[in-house]
């Protein structure tokens, strides 16, 4: 092993408190140029907080930050950026009305004289996004992009800042494995260029792929640190959670002969989905796989009446028209959005208000019964293991993963017959994932029907009884039971194979 370069960025006995709650308890940690350092831990362990402190977004409550061995106090993110330290936020940090290009160069505009060099910036932005294999129109308002595309813009924005220290907070949470791979290539490139990279993710297999060194946090305290090649995903998981984690996915129920509770025929969402037909049986877990932009989200939003759509939907055989989310709820459908921040939660309200927003009628006669709400909140916190500094804090201040758990709790509060989960474990730690998978199974066994949209191949494979693969707005095939393999899914997702898609068509005629 060659002598390692001296650390460029260090944290010494770093502590951080929000009011009375201390969330970082004296963390030591060093980041070296040309290395990728993975920071892992449970939801709420303090990863994002540590990263924000390192990059000047929040001041430390105690301890020091050293840059090239010199103690520094970054006044704000700008100061940190001047020192070459750049953070990619876990939560989106883009101005929705502005174009991708404008966002990428925001505050760092390239000028020619008094004016902007818009050609130049468009070209550069285009190139950056090209490298990230995300060829979107650079003029398109970011608000119109899908979450995954937004994430790529976010990454491009950071790359454009050419940093010496690049901190990435769960960059792959909203990316599919293929997109993630694109990112990893960029990381390798930067590494070669001597950039120090701090990286966090709950997808432990990725850690093995990119990281040179791993530091584990638990409840805001340093737990372990070591070279990545000495850490197996299982070991990391164990260190994070503090207990052995075995068989992440529960036993599959096997062939479910339940009757059809939802059947969709010739469903179309203008601009996103065409001629989609499928059935959902009681007690089954149906997976939807596909590449980003395959239109899975749009299909489900169409079914939920959240998007303009056409086609027939049957509930237990009876044709129903669903014009908005309220009607969907009445028909026993519930949808967990993939866009936690934009469509899921009211970030400047508390946990209670958010939890009950969807099922509020259950808590209100003339008045809202706040006691009942509180009770529901306590129940949810226990059931979904939501870790909040306090029950009254703004949801926006919850850790990403805990926001996701709260969103799940909110969706389940209406006790739906049919649960549609779009990226349900996005940003959730491995331990909780296990709980959620168990929970989903529970739902199925109770006789509910579950649809899981996931860009995590392993999740689809490990969890689902049946998988429908979508490809640019069409059902590209269906596989079930033992046939569900990564290879089978990818081949269909990429259009190399279409067997099984037949079902969709026949059904199309039938419907």
């Amino acid at each position, binding site marked *: 092993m060659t002598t390692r370069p001296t650390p460029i960025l260090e944290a010494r006995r770093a502590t951080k*408190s*929000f*009011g*009375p709650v201390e969330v970082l308890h004296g963390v030591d940690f060093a980041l070296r140029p040309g290395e990728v350092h993975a920071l892992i831990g449970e939801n709420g362990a303090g990863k994002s907080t540590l990263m*924000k402190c390192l990059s000047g*977004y*929040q*001041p430390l409550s105690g301890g020091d930050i050293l840059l090239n061995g010199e103690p520094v106090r970054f006044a704000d993110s700008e100061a940190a950026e001047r020192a070459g330290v750049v953070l990619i936020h876990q*939560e989106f940090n883009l101005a929705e009305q502005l174009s991708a290009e404008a966002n990428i160069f925001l505050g760092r505009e390239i000028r020619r004289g008094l004016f902007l060099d818009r050609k130049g910036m468009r070209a550069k932005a285009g190139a950056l996004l090209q490298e990230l294999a995300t060829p979107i129109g650079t003029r398109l308002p970011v608000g119109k992009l899908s979450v995954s595309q937004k994430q790529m813009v976010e990454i491009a924005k950071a790359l454009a800042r050419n940093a010496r220290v690049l901190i990435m907070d769960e960059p792959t949470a909203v990316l599919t494995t293929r997109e993630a791979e694109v990112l990893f290539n960029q990381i390798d490139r930067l590494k070669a260029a001597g950039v120090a990279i701090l990286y966090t993710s709950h997808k432990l297999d990725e850690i093995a792929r990119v990281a040179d060194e791993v530091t584990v946090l638990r409840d805001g305290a340093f737990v372990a640190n070591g070279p990545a090649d000495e850490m197996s995903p299982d070991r990391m998981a164990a260190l994070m959670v503090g207990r052995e984690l075995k068989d992440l996915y529960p036993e599959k129920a096997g062939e479910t002969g339940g009757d059809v509770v939802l059947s969709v025929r010739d469903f179309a969402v203008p601009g996103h989905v065409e001629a989609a037909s499928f059935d959902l049986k009681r007690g089954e877990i149906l997976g939807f796989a596909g590449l980003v932009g395959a239109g899975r989200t749009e299909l489900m939003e169409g079914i939920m009446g*959240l998007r303009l759509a056409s086609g027939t939907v049957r509930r237990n055989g009876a044709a129903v028209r669903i014009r*908005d*989310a*309220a009607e*969907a*709820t009445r028909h026993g459908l519930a*949808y967990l*959005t993939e866009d936690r921040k*934009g*469509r*899921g*939660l*009211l*970030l*400047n*309200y508390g946990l209670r*208000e958010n939890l009950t*927003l*969807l099922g*509020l*009628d259950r*808590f*209100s006669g*003339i*008045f*809202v019964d*706040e006691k009942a709400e509180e009770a529901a909140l306590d129940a949810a916190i226990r059931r979904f293991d939501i870790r909040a500094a306090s029950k009254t804090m*703004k949801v*926006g*201040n919850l850790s990403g993963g805990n926001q996701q758990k709260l969103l799940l709790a*909110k969706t389940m509060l209406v006790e739906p017959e049919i649960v549609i989960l779009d990226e349900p474990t996005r940003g959730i730690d491995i331990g909780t994932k296990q709980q959620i998978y168990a929970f989903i199974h529970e739902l199925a066994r109770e006789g509910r029907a579950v649809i899981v949209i996931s860009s995590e191949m392993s999740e689809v494979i490990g969890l689902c009884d049946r998988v429908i693969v979508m490809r640019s707005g069409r059902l590209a095939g269906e596989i079930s039971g033992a046939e569900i393999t990564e290879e089978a899914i990818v081949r269909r997702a990429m259009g190399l194979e279409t067997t099984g898609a037949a079902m969709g068509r026949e059904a199309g005629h039938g419907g």
Partner: protein
Amino acid sequence: MAVEAKGQPVERRFAVDLHVLGPLVALIALVVLGVSLNEQFLSAGNVTNVLARSSFIGIIAVGATFVITIGGLDLSVGSMSAFLAGITIIVLNWLTPNLGVNWGTIIVGMIVCLLLGLAAGWLNGVLITKGRIEAFIVTLGTLGIFRSLVVWLANGGALSLDFNLREVYRPVYYGGIAGVAWPIIVFALVAIAGEMVMRRTAYGRHCAAIGSNEQVARYSAIHVDRVRLATYMLQGMLVGVATIMYVPRLGSASSTTGLLWELEAIAAVIIGGTMLKGGFGRVWGTVIGVVILSLIDNILNLTDLVSPYLNGAIQGVIIILAVVLQRGRKGA
């Protein structure tokens, strides 16, 4: 979030306190000022005057609190009130010969006024929700429409209520129970009801949700447009209530009726701590805001500190000061 979080503990709690107490502090400061300037200030008579006066704007401002909370705006309330008053007077004068000079007639008039208010609010709401037009534009338009309809109905002059009928109607503004004038009672009831609705009902929750993030509201199975429409109708109805209290005061409606009430109402709402951008509303704050505004006029009249030319300036300064007391709120 992160930046808000900067050094939060102390600062936040502090800010919150001020932000909650801000309007109250301002109010108390004004009262102290008033007392020090004129011993008549706290006399039953004066207090009644001030509160009774503020009741019109007050009742309307309660509605405005909801409109602003859902992220909307209603500039038409002032001229809507003039329009309602005009029609109500016409209807009453027309009914008198048939139904005679009695409460029956007046009740009918009141009902007409309320229904018309609902209708006017419905018009605003439909244009905004179905027509997808910025609330600012819609209500600016209806402001002009209502106002000039009154002028037209009154031939440029004033519409006056039948003299005898007015004698019957007068107590609704000038009368009261246990020494408390009716307008004050009604204002209080509306305010309390408003606060309850805002804080404790699903509807109030939905208003806040829509104002704070419309998408989230939609995805949470809230009928965004329906709630919005309802809110503008609520506003319209409250304008109706205010008008019912207003007509007996001077028994007339003219081009000057309800002039700039919209501005006062919005100002009161914001002084009260509701955010103009929507997402958070506070009815009790609005009530204080309204009282603050009419106290300013009152104090200026009770004293001759300054040339009346400068009244406007003093008002401006006090309004700003009143809000300075709730610093920390995000300016825009």
